[in-house]
């Protein structure tokens, strides 16, 4: 049970406090309800580039990182297709410094041309390092547009291409800031050895006078129902064939989400999973295979991915995979298969909860989904799932017409 206390300021800032009396550290986590899905399709990667710009300093804080380092703290952030999340770890008696720098940059960021130019270069290098200069690095740049035709999940958080990053102007950045960075578009969560009254007082003192911003209503294009199987094959300078079969599934708050999560584990988490047994062990066609879900807020994907030993086996594998999926749907799974993945889920969950930072982050995220208390009811969701529910859901999810795939073939194979 993760304790928490919620309150909302007059300017709309939602606050979640989690008390942990055992730690000398504190975590201040700030989630902004903006991600890559909110970007203009012609200027993608801005949400993530902007995350970098948030470390530029603000009206009263010349150097964001330095102010924290001076009190033994440290900060970082990440951007996803759904959210932008900033976190600070620091000794608990220095918490005011975190509230000072974090509240100051919420509405008074001091951005210079030099900041923009430098971070543009840094992000371009990040783009190259993670997506362009690695074997299979561009997988998700290529796969997203196949899986999503209309919804903005059809581009990756880093952006569609380098050219979009190169084109961002100061006006674009400031426009984005004014739209999305304000108290009523944020969730602040604080974890540490404090009392409720103390936190309420401090948060009011540092955030209470910040002006509320415009209300943004999100009008995303819904992904139309997929009608038939989609496939794309590309050739790259890679040593082995990689395959990705993605299946449409519900979003984070869909009632089937937990079921599909466990389905992905049954299919491809670990060495006793169905796909590993069939393709690694029995057929011996793959060097690796796994299944997972993206975990997105809007309807997302269950992904089956792996690599082949022999590129010429791709068609054979694909034919067999479809036959196998049909078998799984027809025969269903046994109670034992469900118990295995559920127990593993419980262990992972309990270990994850041991970290102060993951507690703070998850509380903010669940509050965004509707209620911080979902953090405690989630386990129950998983515990209540029955084999019948799984079997019913299998038939809905593992349909070929709901699948989009990407195959990456090595160049040398192509030349043969």
């Amino acid at each position, binding site marked *: 049970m993760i304790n928490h206390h919620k309150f909302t300021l007059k300017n709309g800032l939602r606050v979640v406090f989690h008390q942990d009396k*055992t730690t*000398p550290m504190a975590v201040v986590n700030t989630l902004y309800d903006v991600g890559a899905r909110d970007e203009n399709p012609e200027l993608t990667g801005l949400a993530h580039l902007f995350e970098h710009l948030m470390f530029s300093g603000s009206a*009263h804080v010349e150097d964001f990182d330095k102010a924290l380092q001076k009190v033994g703290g440290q900060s970082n952030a990440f951007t996803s297709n759904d959210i932008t999340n900033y976190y600070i770890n620091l000794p608990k008696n220095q918490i005011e410094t975190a509230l000072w720098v974090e509240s100051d940059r919420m509405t008074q960021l001091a951005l210079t041309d030099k900041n923009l130019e430098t971070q*543009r270069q840094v992000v371009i*290098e990040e783009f190259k390092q993670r997506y362009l*200069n690695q074997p299979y690095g561009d997988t998700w740049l290529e796969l997203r547009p196949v899986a999503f035709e209309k919804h903005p999940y059809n581009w990756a958080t880093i952006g569609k291409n380098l050219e979009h990053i190169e084109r961002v102007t100061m006006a674009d950045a400031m426009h984005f800031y004014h739209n999305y960075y304000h108290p009523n578009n944020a969730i602040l969560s604080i974890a540490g050895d404090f009392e409720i009254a103390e936190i309420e007082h401090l948060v009011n*003192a540092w955030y209470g006078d910040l002006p509320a911003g415009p209300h943004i209503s999100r009008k995303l294009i819904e992904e139309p129902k997929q009608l038939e199987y989609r496939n794309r094959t590309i050739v790259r300078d890679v040593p082995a064939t990689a395959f990705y079969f993605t299946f449409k599934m519900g979003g984070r708050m869909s009632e089937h989400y937990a079921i599909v999560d466990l389905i992905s584990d049954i299919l491809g988490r670990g060495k006793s999973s169905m796909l590993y047994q069939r393709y690694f062990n029995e057929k011996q066609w793959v*060097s690796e295979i796994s299944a997972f879900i993206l975990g997105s807020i809007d309807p997302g994907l269950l992904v089956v991915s792996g690599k082949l030993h022999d590129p010429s086996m791709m068609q054979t594998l694909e034919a067999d995979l479809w036959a196998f999926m049909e078998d799984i749907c027809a025969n269903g799974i046994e109670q034992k298969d469900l118990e295995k*993945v559920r127990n593993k889920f419980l262990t992972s969950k*309990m270990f994850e909860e041991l970290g102060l930072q993951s507690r703070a982050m998850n509380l903010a995220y669940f509050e965004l989904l509707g209620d911080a208390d979902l953090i405690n009811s989630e386990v129950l969701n998983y515990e209540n799932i029955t084999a019948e529910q799984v079997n019913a859901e299998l038939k809905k999810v593992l349909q070929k017409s709901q699948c989009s795939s990407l195959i990456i073939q090595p160049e040398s194979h192509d030349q043969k």
Partner: protein
Amino acid sequence: MTKNRSQAPEVGALQNISLVLPEIHNTESGLPIHVIREVPNDVFHVHIEFGAGKMQQTKPLISSFTADLLFSGTKDLSQLEIQEKLDMQGAFVNVEAGMNRSSLHVYGLLNHFQSTFEIVKDVLENASFPEDKFEMHRKAALQQHTINMEKNAYVARREFLKALFPNNKLGEVAEESDFLNIKAKDCSEFYQEHLSKNVEQINIVGPISEEHIAILEEIFNNRYSKTTKAQKLDLTYHPVQQYIEKPKAMQTTIRIGRVLFTPKHEDYFEFDILETILGGYFGSRLMQNLREDKGYTYGVGSGITAYENTGYFFISTEVGKEHKDAAVEAIKHEINRLREEEIGTDELDLARAYIQGQILKSTDGAFAQMSQFLFAKRFDLPQNHLNSFLETLNKISPKRLQELAVKYLDWDKMVVVVVG
């Protein structure tokens, strides 16, 4: 009441670190079992350390293949049966081969402790390294190696280690031929000789009871063997500079460093402070210069890797290919600046405060405290060494840091590997 934003909040006093030491159970055989129980959830992490790793293997890959395949079958059970049994308990196992030891990590739910360790016991007594599982693993590992060889950072790390340690096993890297030559028999021999016995110590984090400890004692009591002293190594090396060109690369990996010492060396902790200032945190000189000022890279950092036998210092980054020469020059410039000028007190104070926060964080929670205990034990440091480190941190002067830079950061002693 609103706050005055123009003024930074008052800096709180330095918090004392309170290091919880594990309970130590000395079993009949002398096998030490270390326990920290202060964990809020009913989970456990049992870490079993064996006294053999890469140093003890007779050919490359043996220790890591043995680790990877330890749970691939026993006399009576197939890999699938073992795995399904573990899954039913919600348990995870992870075996890894280090330089001087191998580790078996078991994570699980407390109410399944006994049944989980029945499986572990069977594996430790009867691991069979089946030929077919070995072949599958070899094939998959070779493919992964081939893929990794396409990554600049992987190639650079290999060349760097080879150059730093040309005369001992720390610099031994696996080649394709090693993947082809290794035999299942090599693994079963390594297991028989080292992993079926040779348990050095067991470290447990979790709210376990005496009954749980008794279960472990029963399994491991007769497998204890005292820690062997780390081998003396031939540590001579030549400060080579090497560029491996990859015509199609968009980025270049740079690794620079030298052989240094273990944490037992009198200069280790002071050098650690110097290294942090150079490249150990976001405010470091390298990060500020190469990333925040010039935008050459997404990240640059430095560090110290420590073994019982020795240690090395390294700087590592991936930069846009067009910046590779300028980046090496900028790194050289920052290294020489530490040697030529004293560090300003503001900068030193900043690093001090940052490191103090890190020390506090490194003692936060049961897992962190167990790591601290094991670090001190492994390197034969007093258990209160973090307090001594804090004293060193408060005392160290700009002059002393410059002395250390002159002594240890001589560019002519550096191995420089550039790939891409």
